[in-house]
């Protein structure tokens, strides 16, 4: 299945790439990317469905509810890096085209 790479998905992938080894909370990603929960969670679900995102429940002391954590899988990291590179190359080409034109 192909993942639709909207600008919002790229933002989420970008947020994960800032600290690839860290587990992130949903609300933190939402604040970093400026995406609302209604936009963020469908993206996270799709990434998880395609095996690009690992999910885990935080281990906390008894009585405190755990939070859900997210981290890109190795495949997800590769996917995000490739797309960031190709996007950067595309932007460079566009900038060069504008400069020539």
């Amino acid at each position, binding site marked *: 299945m192909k993942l639709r790479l909207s600008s919002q998905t790229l933002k989420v992938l970008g947020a994960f790439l800032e600290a690839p080894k860290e587990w992130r*909370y*949903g*609300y933190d990603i*939402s604040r970093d990317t400026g995406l*609302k*929960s*209604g*936009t*963020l*969670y*469908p993206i*996270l*679900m799709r990434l998880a469905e395609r095996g690009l995102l690992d*999910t885990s429940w935080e281990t906390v002391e008894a009585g405190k*509810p*755990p*939070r*859900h954590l997210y981290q890109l899988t190795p495949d997800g990291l590769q996917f995000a890096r490739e797309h960031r590179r190709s996007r950067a190359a595309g932007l460079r080409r566009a900038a060069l085209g504008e400069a020539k034109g």
Partner: protein
Amino acid sequence: MFAARRSAVRRLATRLLGLVLCCAPRHCEPWVSAMLRELDFIEGDWAALFWALGSVAAIFRHSGRELLRTGFRRQEEAGMKETGKNVAWVFLGVVLAALLVVCAMGLFHLAAHFYPPMFQSVPWPTWVVVFLVPEILFVVGTVRLWRKRRPMAVGILLAAVVFATHFVMHIVSHFRG
């Protein structure tokens, strides 16, 4: 007063997501729980309510899409299974009808063997044994099975039509010759 209203808004947000958690499909439950847990860390009650509303929309969209996908797949599979079954019943009807015709032919040959003059002088006993009796049985079988096992009835009917056409063509060519 304001603090009480704010907490009521947060409570509403929590209840909303709690309700969704109760009704959500199994595959969505961890996601709804995750959204619910995040509520405690959102600064501002109205922000929490908007978070909950957005989460509800996300879950509805996701489960709706999932339902459409799996629903169509199941329907497709069920349809294929049903078609396979129907084809098997039609085939069985045709085979049974063919067996009946073979039996009638055998009976005709047996009768011709034991009493040859009857079949040599007039053609109608042949027609009765080889054509009329099987066709009557086909029609009766089709009518009886039409409600209970329609595909099989269709198979028998199909065989009856083919057999009747073959018989008519045979008679026509015989009388022309």
